[in-house]
Structure formats: structure tokens, C-alpha cells
């Protein structure tokens, strides 16, 4: 048996949802970022999987998109973590429940 596309998709969906879980239910801001990174990685798995199982794999579009996506994730992580540090400096906390200055 070789892994099929469906298996990969389900795996990546699982990864995505674990990321979502981290982003949704943890209070620490860094967990949210971890979650987001996981979700992005899950999406990347999808891209590469779709490329591998596409009828025209000579065109490495999925791979390229994954590469770009990784680069963007790096940028996201850098800025996100910088934000966390800035927020921590300002509020002395990274508990997102306490960061509700924008409430209506």
C-alpha cells in the first residue's frame, strides 16, 4: 500500500486542526503563533501533496508555492514574535485574554 492523496489530505487536515486548537484554546500568545505556524505547515503539505498527485508533475507549481509559503511563514513568525515581545514589554503579559483594549 502506498499513501494516497486522501491520506495526505486527512493528515494535513489533522495537522491544521491541531494548529487551530492551539490557536483557539491556549491563552499564551506564543501558542497562537505556534498554532498558526502549524496551520501554515499543514497547508504546505497540501500543496506539495497536490503537486505530487497532479496529472502534470513536471510543472513544480505546488512546490514553488510551498517555498513561497514557507518564506512568508518565516516573515510572519518574525513579525508575530516581535509583536509578542512588544506587547509583553508594554503590558507585562502575554495572556491574550488580558489584551482586550480593542473591545467595543
Amino acid at each position, binding site marked *: 500500500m502506498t499513501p494516497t492523496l486522501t491520506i495526505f489530505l486527512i493528515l494535513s487536515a489533522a495537522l491544521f486542526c491541531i494548529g*487551530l486548537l492551539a*490557536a*483557539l*484554546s491556549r491563552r499564551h500568545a506564543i501558542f*497562537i503563533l505556534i498554532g498558526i505556524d502549524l496551520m501554515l505547515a499543514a497547508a504546505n503539505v497540501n500543496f506539495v501533496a497536490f503537486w505530487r498527485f497532479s496529472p502534470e508533475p513536471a510543472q513544480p507549481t505546488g512546490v514553488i508555492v510551498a517555498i513561497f509559503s514557507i518564506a512568508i511563514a518565516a516573515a510572519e513568525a518574525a513579525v508575530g514574535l516581535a509583536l509578542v515581545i512588544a506587547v509583553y514589554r508594554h503590558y507585562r503579559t502575554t495572556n*491574550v*485574554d488580558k*489584551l*482586550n*483594549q*480593542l*473591545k*467595543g
Partner: protein
Amino acid sequence: MSSWIVTYLWLIPAVPLAASLVILMLANSRRTASAALAIFGQVVALTMAVAAFLPTLQTPGYRAFHNFTWFTFGEQTLRIGWVIDPLAAAMLVMITLVGLCIFVFSIGYMAKDKNFTRFFAYLSFFSAAMLGVVIANSLLLLFVCWELVGLASYLLIGFWIHKPSAAAAAKKAFITTRIGDIGFFLGILWLYGRSGTLLFYDHGNGCLENAGLLLVGASATFIALLIFCGAAGKSGQFPLHVWLPDAMEGPTPVSALIHAATMVAAGVFLVARVYPLFSLGAIDGVTPSLTVVVWIGVVTALMAALIALAQADIKRILAYSTVSQLGLMMVSLGVGGVAAGIMHLLAHGFFKALLFLGSGSVIHGCHEEQDIRNMGGLRRLMPVTFLTYAIGMMTLSGVPLFFSGAWTKEEILHATAHWPKSSVPYYLMLAGVVLTALYMTRQMIYVFFGDKRAASEHAHESPRVMTMPLIVLAVCAIVFSIALTPAWPWLHGYLSGEPAHFEIGQLIQPMLFLSLALVAGGIGLGVLFYRKAGATDPLAQAQPAIFRFLENKMWLDEFYARTVLAFAHFAARFSDVMDRYFWDSLVRALAGVGQLFGILSSHFDERGINSGVDGATTGARGLGRFIAARHSGQIQTYLRAAGVGALALLILYAWLA
């Protein structure tokens, strides 16, 4: 045939100009260097002038020019150039020679001035501009240099700028001459429009040559008269002479250079230069324009001589004398004696410079005193000055035989006598000769003879550097007459392009006796009249009303102030008031109307449109508050909502699919 010098003629003004620029850049303390530079420039100019003079001797009526394009506009070109002919050559030599003397004199005269370097820069600049006027072969180039001469004279007259009177005099000089220049400028425009060129000589196409003159045609009279306006302004002809006596506020060398030898002569030179325009269409040597020149000259000559009689300032007397002599030259030109006029101009350059420098020496010796009533008895104290001054005085008065002025004056009288239109100028000129002798005698007696007065107590002879130029000029004034006598009218021939022959028999002319008699009369009258003169003038005692009239320069300045100036001031004020109030209020009224509309419109907005909109706003605000309350500010809440939303969408999709 043209000599190399023609191509390099521009160097004559360029060298003093360069000297001037260099001096301007020197520090104020580099006095020796600046004087040396200026004099060096002048010497070079003199050498070149002589070099330029030499070829003109070879052929009678020699004329060489060099033209070039100054700039191209559109498809047209504007050409200028320079010319050397006897007129220019003679002027060049005279100007550079006299100028050199004055430069040297200035070293002594200005020795204590703290702006010594600047003075020499200005002098050099002036010299350059003047030489430019002389060599110009284009009315435009001449005008350019002409204006620069004006600027130089402005700077020099106002040299002692801390004196308000000097500044005022400088301004007056510039503006008065500028009035004349406006006419000149229009004349240039007109001429340019007519002939299509401003070059004097251009291989037959110049505006003074046949082809050009043909194009000018009938408008020549007006053009000539307009150009004469400029000449009148520069040469101090009535009614624009008022600036010249005031210009004596400048340092004395300036007076000598500008207001005796060179600048004021520029007007005469200009008329001589464009003489073909004046004489175009002459019948029997008379044209309307020349007639105007004659009458203006006559009025000027006589009026100035009269005013000179009543002046107390040593330099002002000389200034009015200059005005008078310039009038004389103008008359000479007007009656057709161009050569005579120029000869007198040259001679006048020497002796009037001599007189001015002499007066400068006197003023210097008397510690900056200028009022002749405070001098006296300087004969002993300043022998060299006295002697040279006497030579100058006799030359000016026209004492015959030995002094150059006599010969030229005689020739002018001669020419005037033959004017076909009227003989009145001739007689008035004779009167002028007498008056000249009279006021010069008055001045001599006041300054050098009689008892010592307040200012001459501590007088002293001037240093060598000042007396040497005096001597040189005096020698020139005498020696120059060799070229002027009727026996060997070399200069006359040279200027008018005819060869001169030596005939000793021509030496004594009937006019000589007449002139001798007139001069003797004048001097005699003067001696008689002023021999015992005291603090008050004899004329003032005899005829106080006339004296006051003359002393106040015939109230011309006051007259101008009341009429022309007053009108101009009024016009200025009026323009300003119109601007500030009339036009402005017009605009503001318009703006007011606009504002009114604005107010009306805003009221309409307020009452009509806004009330409807307000209701809508209130509703929107309430809704906004409600929604805002749902926003907890907690990011995860939003994220969860998004997740649920996505799920809902998915379910919706599944349901629909």
C-alpha cells in the same frame, strides 16, 4: 589696409576693465598694488591708443572697423563692432593721457581715504567704459558703454557714500542722464527699426553709410533729436545740465576725469559720431536737428557762464564753466564745424582737467575747503599750483597765440559766424567769451591773489605726485596749440580727412584780434571788478537780485522740484492709492458677493438638508453601539467565531450540494 590693432582694439577698454576687476577683488589694505594696477592698465591703454593712433596718420580719412555677431535671436543676428578713425583715435589718446595724469594725481589726493582701492577700481572701470564708447562701431555697443559710463559716474560721484549730499548728487546725476538716455534709447529703437542695423560702418551697409541713411530717410530728424537727448543728458546741456554742478560732490579727480575731460565730452562725441544722421538732407549745412543743437548749445553756454559768475564753490565754478564750454562745442557742431568742436573738445579735455586738478590741489592744500571766499593769497604758498592754474585759466579764457583753447575757440567763432540761418548765436558766443574770461579772472583773484583768508592760513603746496600731473597737463595745454594754429591746421585736417599744409601767413587771422580784444576786455573787467573783492561779492553788492538769481542757478532745480518731480511724486502716490484702495476694494466687493451666497447656502444646508440626515445618523449610531458591545476585544473569541463561520459555510455548501 586695416592694421592688426583694429582686431585687438577691444583690448584698450578691456585692460582697464580687467585691472578694475582685479582691484575690486583685492583687500582694502592693498593700496599700492591697486594703484599700480590701475596705472598699469592705463599705461597699457595709452600705449595701445597711440598704436591705434599711428595708422590713422598715414592716410587721410582712414577708417577701419571690425564687426562680429554678438548674438543671434530667431533668425536675426545682432552685430556689434569697433572702429578706429581719426575721431576715435584722437579721443582715445586724449582720454588715456588725461586719464593717466588724473590717476597719478589721485594717488596723492586720495592718499588718506580708507576706500583707496575701491576708488581706483571705479576709476579704471570708468576709463574702460569711456574708451568703449569711443571705439564703438555700433550704436548699441556705444549705448552699452554709455550706460556703463553712467554707472561709473554714479559710483564715483557717490564715492563718499556716507555723505548724504554725495549720494543724492549721484542719484541725481544718474537719473538726469537717464532721462536723456530714454530718448537716446528710443532713437536707437527707431533707427534700428528703420535701417535694420546699428553698425555705424559696415562696408557700405552701416547706418551712417549711404545705404543705411537711405533707409532712414525722413525720420532722420527725429532720430537725431532723440539721440541728441542722450547727448544733452550726458553733456549737461540745458535743460538737463542740473546734475553736473551737483556732481562736484565727488572727489576732485573724479570731477576732473568725468566732468571735464571725458564723460561730459561723450555727448559731444556722440553727436560728432552720428553726425551723418544730423546732417542728412541738409540744405546749406542746415537741418532742423542741427538748428536745435545750436540753440540748445547757445542757451546752455550763456546760461552756464552767467551762473558761474555767482558761484562761490571753486569746483562749481569750474563745473558751470564746463557746461558752458560744452554748449560752445554743441554750437560748433550744430553750425557745421565738427572738426572745430572736436578740437575744442580735445583741448578742453586737457585744460579743464588741469583746472580741476589744480582746484583739487588747492582744496587739498586748504584742507578740504572749497569756498573761494575763504581762500586768497595762495599765489605764494602754492607756486606750482598757481602757475599751472594760471595757464589753465588763460587757456580757458582763450588768451591767444600760446594757449590751445584760444585757437579752437577762435575756430568755433569762425564757424559760427558763417552760419547761414542766424547771426544771433555768433554774437551770443562773443558775449560768452567775455563772460568766460570774467568769471575765470574772478576765481583767480579770489583764490590766488589778495590777502590770506581763513582757509589759506595753513595752506601748503601739494606733494610731487600731485603737481607732476599738473605740469604735464599744463605743458600739453600749451604744446597742443601747435597742432591747432591756422598756420598749420594739422588737427583740423586730420579730423576732417584733408591734408594740412604749413602756411605761416595764415597764422594771424582777423578773428584773432577780435578774440584778443574780447579776452582782454573780459580779464580787464574782471581785474577791475574783483580787485578789491571782499567777503561779499561785488556783484552781490551791485545787483543783489541778479546775483541771487544766478547764485541759485536761476532756480531751475526748484523749478524742476515744483513741476516735474512733484508731478512724478503725485503720479506715484496716485498709483499706489489706486492700487491699495480702488482696485482692491473692487475685488473685495466681488468677494463679498460670493460670501453672501455662501452664507445663504450654508443656512439652507443647516435647516433643510441636515435635519433629514441627522435622523439617519442617530439610528446608525445606535446600531453601531449595539454591534460594538459584541466585540470583547479577545482575539480568540473572534477566531472561534471565524472557525464557526467557516464551518457554517461548509455545512451550507454540503447542504446545497
